[in-house]
């Protein structure tokens, strides 16, 4: 054992994670076993495992090409893995597309592609899940219940403490942070199990990034576990409860930010910290 990794027993690798992290008897909300995804000669996922527990923010980090986004896409239903299993609440699932994942209460916030700028806030929050008026107006004439959607949008935005007054304003009139707020509100409003956030602060300034990090904590504090994909180590270490480190298509380690430094995490991620220091499978 070297001094650079301590305490050693807090570092959980591929092999011992399955036997139980410090989660005690908690069961994972979302779990993956041995995911494999190949693109021709390239193996993007090479038997990757994954666990997300209730009420936590789990950051997923990894170098480019570590299979981080492939892993997330598999969990969000955006691609179908060649091998391996995914479990939601212990139940084996097969996602063919994002809509399947959404049916299991897994919602994804994308970096910048998720909103229609010319539509207003409540139309964006309810896009693809519009609520119709009750009675024949809704069932026969397909009329939308715009007031109800605006009221519910206002509630979601208020729950997340996003200070936007009018749900009728077009998303393009909002700042970058406010737009991301709408995306987060949209996902957390419909997620029953998991919110996946793919680089939610990548396009934002410092102040706006902090607003979004606060939102992420809000979502967790409301009881929804969050998967956060990020390149930004300081942000990861600020909000994450655990950090899943992906390397060469596998989960190489899971660490807790309070027990490791950022440079440790980077060292594990890049392979600089290897061998006995990091129990790999």
């Amino acid at each position: 054992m070297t001094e650079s990794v301590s305490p050693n027993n807090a570092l959980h690798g591929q092999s011992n994670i399955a036997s139980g992290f410090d989660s005690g008897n908690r069961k994972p909300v979302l779990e993956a076993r041995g995911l494999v995804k190949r693109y021709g000669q390239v193996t993007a996922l090479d038997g990757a495992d994954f666990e997300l527990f209730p009420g936590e923010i789990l950051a997923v980090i990894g170098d480019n090409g570590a299979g981080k986004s492939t892993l997330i896409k598999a969990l969000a239903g955006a691609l179908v893995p060649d091998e391996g299993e995914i479990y939601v609440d212990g139940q084996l699932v097969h996602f063919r597309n994002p809509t399947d994942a959404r049916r299991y209460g897994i919602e994804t916030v994308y970096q910048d592609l998720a909103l229609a700028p010319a539509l207003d806030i409540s139309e964006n929050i309810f896009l693809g899940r519009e609520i119709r008026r009750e009675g024949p107006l809704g069932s026969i004439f397909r009329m939308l219940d715009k007031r109800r959607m605006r009221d519910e949008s206002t509630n979601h935005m208020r729950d997340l403490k996003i200070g936007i007054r009018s749900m009728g304003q077009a998303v393009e009139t909002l700042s970058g942070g406010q737009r991301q707020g709408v995306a987060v509100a949209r996902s957390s409003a419909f997620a029953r199990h998991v919110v996946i956030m793919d680089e939610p602060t990548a396009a934002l300034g410092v102040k706006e990034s902090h607003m979004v990090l606060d939102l992420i904590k809000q979502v967790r504090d409301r009881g929804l576990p969050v998967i956060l994909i990020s390149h930004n180590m300081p942000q990861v270490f600020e909000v994450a409860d655990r950090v899943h480190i992906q390397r060469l298509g596998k989960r190489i380690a899971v660490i807790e930010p309070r027990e490791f430094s950022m440079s440790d995490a980077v060292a594990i991620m890049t392979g600089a910290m290897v061998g006995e220091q990091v129990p790999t499978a």
Partner: protein
Amino acid sequence: MNTAVPADGATSGASGVRSLAASLWGLGPLLALILASAYFTTQSDRFLTGPNLSLVVQQSLVVGVLAIGQTLIILTAGIDLSCGAVMALASVVMARLAVVNGVNPLIALLLGILVAALFGVANGVLITRFDLPPFIVTLGTLNIAFAITHIYSQNQTITRVPDLLGILGSTFRIGGTSITYGTVLMFALYVLTWYVLRLTAAGRHVYAVGDNPEAARRSGINTTQLLIAVYLLAGILYGIAGWVSIGRTGAGDPNAGQTDNLASITAVVLGGTSLFGGRGRIMGTLIGVLIVGVFRNGLQLIGVESVYQVLITGILVILAVIVDQFARKRQL
């Protein structure tokens, strides 16, 4: 533990100004229509009379109905060059089946609309399944529809159509003014389309697909299906426009509608709908149609050569596109 995230004051202020500017621009086409009408009223005693206004609308009917389909397609960030040719084909099919082949007029009418609908589906499938640009696909179907029209009709205008096919040219009177059933049908189609676009999920999805197709797809909207449905619906509208055209001229005319594709795009653009998709209003298109109609009629009344109407339309179109581009740049 978290403080409330305040609304960004500067952004809200700017957005206030922007939305004011946006709503003023939304009124722009209406303002242009009112100003043009006011001008022609001062220049000609005949302009602001019931019969003359009824004539303005009647002259705008075919393009008016085509422009509904065109608006739907442009909202999805597409364009349709085939609409006029498909309309002409539908009218020839209706007239020829009924007059030459003695088919029941109602069935001839429905078959004409069906032919137009098939062209719409063909456009939609080629654009979505083969991922081809709408401009090129509809340029192709424009030529195909044009050729089929002339082959099938043997270049002959079919007159003496049965009553049902000509009925949209029949009139009823309100006060001293004759109004055609075609006029009523066109306004009804605009109101129906407004309802669907504004108040139903499908309508909002049309905007979303034109605005950000990736976001629409990720929201669980089947964008391929939606686009094919839009082109199908547009095709049905072109078929109805063919029926309107028979009512207007009393004949199935293979040479009808040759410039109507550009005229319908002109009306959509004048009405403030963005050629980049996702933004626009169906009632703006109606106003755009009427602007063109009022200029044509008004300039005729005051004895200006019709070529000046074309000149003014050209200038207005470029003006409308400049404002659209400017508004978009401000928003991005």
